[in-house]
């Protein structure tokens, strides 16, 4: 007994955990012998155990055998088929239990059913049916079973199964129309969407439109009866969910129209997407001749002779709508259809290419996704390799979708989260456990891989053939063939595609691309492999056309530096950063042209951190230690500055640095340059210098465009002549424009006596000046003073001498008044020459610095409060608007809301100014006037396009608030 127990329980266990059901199944099959499986049960158990879900298969077999008698499952092959189908689909197992005819289908030759066979089967079923809707539904379910069996048993590929599902629908629809027809009127059913494309799912809406000839009322009656018959809910479910809402005017429009009616509508009213939906239109039932005439009628609307610019816009909008739709964002990667890298991505890509190129090339007009993809590859519109990958991916994802839906015949597109369920899905998709991995692991890996490469090559798909064209052209040129005989895209087609992808001037972009990628040079070949990754990033940037020009300029400039292209090839993220930057700022592109060694550092790790001031200082000192001539060292400083600022700008434009960080880093760079410049100019002199940074330099809030405001002191007095020469040398070494450009513009105008005074003074002379002669505004300027270079002790001594003068214990009223009057005068002067009063004149642009609510309002407010309170509260004596504002708020001198308004306003204004400088604005303090420029700026700042108005609203709100606080805290 113990000997026999093992094989028995072993057999039963192989039929799943439910031994009771296993016993029932074997018993029903006549394979049960007393209290154990019969000896001949083993091969049958093997068959069942191969099912994707053994337990379900076992139960289904038991139920079928019970229902239809043990002889119903006479052959092993039948058991195998039932086990496979039932193991995948509970719903179809139910169909097998309920209908002997289902078992007969599984037993038969499983040949595909043609449309007419289905139609005849429906006719027969309808002949004496009391409930016609139910009869049709049964035929439909049996048809599903046939397709599913062929699909699951490997008799039909996924694509074939999808086509057979469409044919099943056509047959049922045709029979339904036969049943409700009226001889007074001819009606044709036009399949749209996946039905039209002959790529239907097991469970999906069936999209249709109706066209008729004859009496309108009769047609309406027929169509309504048709929809009722198919949509009626019966104990078996309903035949199809027929959706007629793609028709003109959607729900509001008449269900059916005459050919003339459609023509009139498409001529006058149709939206672009409505016309594009006709791409998938195909007569599927009813009057064939009428259907064919509809197809002929539709063609010119899908493929107009000329596509207008607005159509291209609409295609693009379609694309971005899909990409940003809530469904996509919400649905995780488990959404087979909508997730990035999902079915929709593939369908969209194929359709876009069809619409762009199908006008000139009728071979591309197939309504079926895979057929269209094949045609695109054949015509050279898509790279062969890409097309293969896309086709495979589509096939895999559709298979997953089919298997998902088969289980319960529910309309679902979501891969289950639960591991056990996903394991069953994996098995039903054909994955089998192997020693190295379970079915689930293999499925998950494959699924992720497929989504990954669809996502990755999705956009390159559009670009690769543009570039292949150049390769072919150049070889054709060499062989002296006429270039347009080459397969693939004509120049016009290529330009149209570029325009559809976001380049404003497709023709021009094509020209630039030709410069980059045409020919057999090493550079061109490398670029042809690199561009497919760069172009999508450029196309999504605020200024795709400018970015592409920038890329060309960079490539030209670096012609002799092959390392540049190699870097891009070996390190793809670098290309992405570079394209992001180029699509935003030509200016930074030019900097990078001159500092190509920076490019290899444009990676996540390379850009993660700001460079601190100490590092800048060390690098600058290093230049000095080279011991080269003054001129060469000064040029080295210029290069240092350019490299530093370029890196800062890249971090800024790619959203890696806040405006404070940008200001801080620029300041660190300037400090280092001043220190090195001073050391260079004062080399070997027995003189001590200190440099006080003023203005934004002192405050540590430099912008890209800032001058360096400084005041210098020296000791001892006896060395005056040499000292003044050295200062002039310092200014020259940084400010002179040489072949290497300019390091910084050093500005000494804030010094005592301004331009009339000596360029530097001794400590004592400076003290005397501030004590006896300084104007109120000069004392105000001292609030920003900071020792930035030279002899730190000397600088601190100077500051300590001047501070009590700047911050008396009580600010005299005349200083306060002088300051207010000066500010008011600045405003009045700015307004001079402008049209006053109502209505804003053309050319009146928002001034971010001096305008009402501009940066100056924040700075003056903060400085006035510092001066009033600094005497008693040393903690507010600090350079820098934001820092001082924080100290004032901590002291309670500015309330929380006012401080937040000032700080937020300052940050936004400073960021906008910085960005304006980077995008090459002539005056970064003035908001650009043109709507195009404004939108690009808004996009660069991170507003959604078109965002010009949102940005201006935001900016003016901040400025209004700054102004309000300023008027209250400064003038009151």
């Amino acid at each position: 007994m113990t000997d026999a127990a093992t094989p028995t329980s072993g057999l039963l266990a192989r039929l799943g955990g439910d031994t009771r059901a296993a016993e029932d199944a074997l018993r029903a099959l006549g394979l049960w012998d007393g209290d154990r499986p019969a000896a001949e049960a083993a091969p049958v158990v093997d068959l069942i155990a191969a099912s994707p879900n053994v337990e379900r298969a076992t139960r289904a077999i038991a139920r079928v055998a019970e229902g239809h008698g043990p002889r119903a499952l006479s052959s092993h092959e039948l058991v195998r088929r039932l086990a496979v189908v039932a193991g995948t689909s509970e719903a179809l197992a139910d169909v097998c239990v309920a209908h002997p005819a289902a078992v007969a289908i599984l037993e038969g030759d499983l040949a595909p059913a043609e449309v007419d066979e289905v139609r005849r089967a429906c006719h027969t079923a309808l002949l004496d049916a009391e409930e016609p809707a139910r009869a049709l539904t049964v035929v439909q379910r049996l048809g599903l079973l046939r397709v599913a069996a062929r699909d699951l048993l490997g008799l039909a590929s996924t694509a074939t199964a999808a086509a057979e599902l469409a044919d099943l629908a056509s047959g049922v629809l045709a029979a339904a129309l036969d049943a409700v027809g009226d001889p007074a009127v001819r009606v044709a059913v036009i399949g749209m969407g996946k039905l039209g494309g002959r790529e239907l799912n097991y469970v999906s809406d069936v999209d249709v439109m109706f066209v008729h000839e004859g009496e309108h009322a009769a047609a309406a009656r027929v169509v309504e009866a048709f929809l009722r018959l198919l949509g009626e809910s019966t104990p078996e479910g309903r035949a199809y969910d027929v959706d007629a809402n793609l028709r003109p005017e959607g729900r509001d429009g008449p269900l059916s129209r005459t050919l003339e009616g459609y023509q009139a509508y498409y001529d006058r009213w149709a939206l672009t997407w409505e016309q594009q939906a006709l791409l998938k239109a195909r007569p599927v039932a009813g009057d064939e001749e009428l259907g064919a005439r509809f197809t002929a009628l539709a063609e010119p609307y899908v493929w107009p002779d000329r596509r207008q610019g607005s159509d291209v816009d609409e295609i693009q909008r379609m694309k971005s709508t899909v990409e940003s739709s809530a469904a996509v964002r919400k649905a995780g990667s488990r959404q087979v259809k909508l997730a990035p890298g999902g079915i929709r991505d593939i369908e969209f890509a194929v359709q876009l290419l069809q619409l762009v190129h199908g006008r000139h090339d009728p071979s591309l007009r197939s309504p079926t996704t895979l057929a269209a993809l094949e045609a695109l590859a054949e015509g050279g519109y898509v790279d062969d390799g890409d097309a293969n990958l896309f086709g495979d991916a589509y096939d895999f994802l559709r298979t997953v979708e089919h298997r998902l839906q088969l289980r319960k015949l529910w309309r679902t597109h979501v891969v289950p989260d639960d591991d056990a369920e996903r394991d069953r899905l994996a098995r039903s998709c054909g994955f089998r456990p192997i020693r190295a991995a379970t079915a689930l692991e293999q499925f998950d890996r494959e699924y992720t891989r497929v989504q990954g490469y669809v996502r990755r090559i999705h956009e390159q798909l559009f670009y690769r053939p543009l570039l292949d064209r150049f390769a072919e052209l150049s070889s054709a040129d060499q062989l002296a063939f006429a270039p347009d005989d080459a397969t693939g895209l004509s120049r016009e087609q290529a330009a149209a595609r570029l325009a559809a992808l976001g380049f404003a001037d497709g023709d021009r972009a094509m020209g630039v691309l030709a410069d980059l990628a045409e020919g057999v040079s090493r550079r061109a070949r490398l670029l042809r492999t690199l561009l497919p990754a760069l172009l999508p990033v450029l196309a999504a940037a605020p200024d795709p056309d400018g970015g592409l020009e920038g890329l060309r300029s960079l490539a030209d400039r670096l012609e002799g530096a092959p390392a540049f292209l190699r870097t891009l090839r070996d390190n793809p993220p670098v290309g992405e950063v570079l394209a992001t930057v180029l699509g935003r700022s030509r200016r930074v592109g030019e900097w990078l042209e001159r500092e190509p060694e920076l490019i290899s550092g444009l990676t996540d790790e390379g850009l993660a951190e700001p460079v601190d001031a100490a590092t800048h200082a060390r690098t600058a000192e290093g230049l000095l230690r080279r011991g080269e001539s003054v001129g060469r060292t000064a040029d080295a400083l210029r290069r240092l500055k350019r490299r530093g600022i370029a890196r800062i700008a890249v971090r800024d434009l790619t959203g890696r640095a806040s405006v404070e960080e940008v200001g801080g880093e620029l300041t660190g760079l300037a400090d280092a340059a001043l220190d090195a410049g001073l050391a260079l100019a004062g080399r070997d002199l027995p003189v001590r210098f200190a440099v006080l940074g003023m203005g934004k330099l002192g405050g540590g809030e430099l912008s890209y465009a800032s001058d360096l405001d400084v005041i210098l002191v020296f000791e001892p007095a006896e060395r005056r002549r040499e000292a003044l020469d050295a200062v002039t040398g310092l200014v020259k070494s940084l400010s002179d424009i040489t072949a290497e450009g300019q390091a910084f513009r050093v500005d000494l105008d804030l010094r005592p006596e301004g331009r009339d005074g000596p360029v530097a003074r001794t400590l004592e002379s400076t003290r005397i000046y501030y004590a006896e002669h300084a104007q109120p505004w000069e004392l105000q300027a001292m609030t920003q003073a900071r020792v930035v270079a030279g002899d730190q002790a000397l600088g601190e001594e100077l500051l300590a001498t001047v501070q009590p003068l700047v911050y008396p214990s009580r600010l005299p009223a005349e200083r306060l008044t002088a300051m207010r009057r000066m500010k008011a005068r600045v405003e009045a002067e700015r307004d001079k020459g402008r049209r006053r009063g109502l209505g804003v004149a053309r050319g009146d642009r928002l001034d971010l610095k001096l305008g009402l609510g501009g940066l100056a309002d924040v700075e003056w407010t903060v400085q006035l409060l510092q001066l009033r309170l600094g005497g008693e509260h040393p903690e507010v004596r600090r350079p820098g608007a934001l820092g001082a504002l924080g100290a004032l708020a901590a002291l309670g001198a500015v309330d929380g809301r006012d401080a937040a308004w000032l700080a937020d306003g300052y940050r936004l204004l400073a960021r906008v100014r910085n960005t304006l400088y980077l995008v090459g604005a002539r005056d970064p303090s003035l908001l650009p006037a043109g709507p195009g420029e404004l939108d690009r700026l808004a996009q660069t700042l991170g507003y959604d396009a078109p965002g010009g108005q949102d940005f201006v609203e935001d900016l003016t709100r901040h400025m209004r608030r700054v102004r309000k606080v300023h008027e209250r805290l400064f003038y009151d």
Partner: protein
Amino acid sequence: MDKQQEYVLRTVEERDIRFVRLWFTDVLGMLKSVAITSSEIEGAFAEGIGFDGSAVDGFARVQESDMLAVPDASTFQVLPWRGDDAPVARMFCDIRTPEGEAFTADPRQVLRRNLRKASELGYSFYVHPEMEFFLFNGPDDPTPLDHGGYFDLTPLDVQSDFRREAIQTLEAMGISVEYSHHEVAPSQHEIDLRYADALTMADNVMTYRLAVKEVAMHRGIYATFMPKPMAAYWGSGMHTHVSLFDGDTNAFYDDADPYHLSEVGKRFIAGVLAHAREITAVCCQWVNSYKRLVPGFEAPVFVSWGRHNRSSLIRVPMYKPHKSASARVEFRAPDPACNPYLAFSVILAAGLRGIEQGYEVPPEAEDNIYELTDTERRAAGIDSLPRNLDEALRVMEDSELVAEALGEHVFEFFLRNKRVEWDAYRAQVTPFEIERYLPML
């Protein structure tokens, strides 16, 4: 092209309409019109009609001087006063930028934006204004045509004929009239429009003002919406009844409450009261508006609410049994010379603020507040509405609520424009001064 647009084109063809007027409203509430021929309509639907925005008060900004007027087909109406011979129709327009973005300073867009905020809370905003106006001999002659009073029947006179024709005209344009009567003051009339969603109602108010003026002109008289044309008589108000609906349910109604007013309704009232001073400049936007807001003529002067009190700023009208849909709040500050899009916007914004932040409604003012002394009023926490345009602007300037509701562009323009108006007024020497001071000083 949608069905509405198709209908417009068909009607234009059938009725042989040669010209269609495209209407929009400037920031100050003045109706602007561009006429296009019937052949241009289709293009206007598709792409809009270009115009120079800098020519319109409150629209100009450099980057926006080229603008598009895109007609809203659902507002298509034949203008009844143009007769049937060569009929003329009108449509209201939305203003777009050349990029196709809705233009932020278009008053219709301002209202849409605020309605969107309401709909984010699940509410639709309904409005029913009682618009008053005077009939005079002409724009230069404010002599009353009668000495009638409230509910006076002055049969067979030019005025009742006028009212009948005005009502017929409005009805012919699809604007339902609820009610009409002679008002308290001589020559003053009121025609109430049936409640509608706020955007439709703002369009209706614009149409109403034009229709009333047109009908008067046909009869050789002059209709004016000036808030206070005669110092000795009542002024013209636009008492604005408002309610929020959540689907079919009136969100202001509560069976269990003694006022039949829901918590939402009370918070809405609290919001409007709390921000009443800030929104006054928009609801009462002219120097003359403040001549209406004085004691003695049942116009609101103080910030208060009540059920029976006719001098309250907000009145909760008597509840009619079994008419939960009619539960509503009457805000009595606006006058008929306001910009209805902006006025509805700020009223809604104030009310929503009350709902969102759960404002507490102050106690109902039971007494006649005019009879209270200043100190009594202060003790009761009852504030005054701004006494003149200057004060109203000062309060508005400090209102983040109004800035947000109107958008920065409209907010800034409105203040600037009104400041100029006030300054011009300030420089006037009035008949009051001449009469009083010249003999004496």
